[in-house]
């Protein structure tokens, strides 16, 4: 569905607070705009973002029409164990984008 840029540090010390950044290309069409034909362009926004760390949800967000195109989210998390950080975005058309990043904790 989209292009994604993820920033997760590849390695971290146990207990270290790390910043995770996730950027995705999406029009975030508000549903309030009219197209060239004068009709409303149907709303299509990413409505939910979730992030799992080795299967456990560590962050989620509900998104709304006032959020600009190509939403960028960043948040902090404690690096607890080596494993996979998984990202999921779902939009109004129920298109799902999945990405993962590996982290090694020493």
């Amino acid at each position, binding site marked *: 569905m989209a*292009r994604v*840029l*993820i*920033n997760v540090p590849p390695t971290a010390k146990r207990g270290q607070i790390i910043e995770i*950044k996730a*950027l995705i*290309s999406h029009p*975030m069409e508000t549903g309030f705009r009219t197209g060239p034909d004068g009709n409303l362009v149907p709303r299509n926004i990413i409505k939910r973002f979730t992030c799992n760390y080795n299967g456990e949800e560590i962050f989620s967000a509900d998104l709304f029409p006032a959020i*600009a*195109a*190509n939403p*960028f989210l*960043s948040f902090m998390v404690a690096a607890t164990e080596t494993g996979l950080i998984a990202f999921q975005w779902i939009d109004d058309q129920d298109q799902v984008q999945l990405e993962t990043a590996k982290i090694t904790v020493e």
Partner: protein
Amino acid sequence: MIRLPPRTRWGAAAGLMVLGLSPAFAAEIPLAERRSGFDFMSRDSQALQHDDTANPGMLLVLDGEMLWNSMAGAAGRSCADCHGAALVSMKGVAARYPAYNAEHRRPIDLQGRINLCREVKQNATPFAWESPELLALAAYVAHQSRGMPITAGEDPRLQPFIERGRALYEQRQGQLNFSCANCHDDNWGQKLGGSVIPQAHPTGYPLYRLEWQAVGSLQRRLRNCMTGVRAEPYPLGSPEFVDLELFLMFRAWGMPIETPAVRP
């Protein structure tokens, strides 16, 4: 509204001519005072541009990389088939565009050059101006020059076109009757509504403009400025726009390329 200095630009130019000086090389803005639009932005916007995993322009650069490696047209060739790794072959190219094209006997800009390859070398339908594909390829190619100094305008055959671009830049136009220079040379650093007037250096294009919520070309930016003074903008891809682009690049000689920049 904008306050104009008491001595007009024409007065200043006439003064130089009386002294027998030629204002031929580069800017009305002294070299030491030249500043990229980057410097006028908020720290948040600057941080966005500086982090390649936060800069939304990088999403389009990735699209461009994919297109660079995709086969297209009747010739069945990708850009990479002829040019190899863009990292090597396209390094510094955007810094010297618009460049003189012998066949067309005039300058063409980077997007024009890319579309020429698409048409002639790939035997494919050229991309529409300002289409996501053309912007993506231009952003990808220009990104290979990031950090390199602008060298456009060195070819002596470009001289008359630089002068034409300069004339367009200095010509008053539109219902508000402003020239580009009235804002960008005489009033840079001042506010117009909520925006700071930058010096109009084309260092970051194609770039991600927050207002557009998208990547756009320098010509799209210039259209915005022209409609801003209620002038009829030139058509995208027109010789007037290419001459203006060339003059702006020449005027920014030596400044580093930032593509993909972020601007408000």
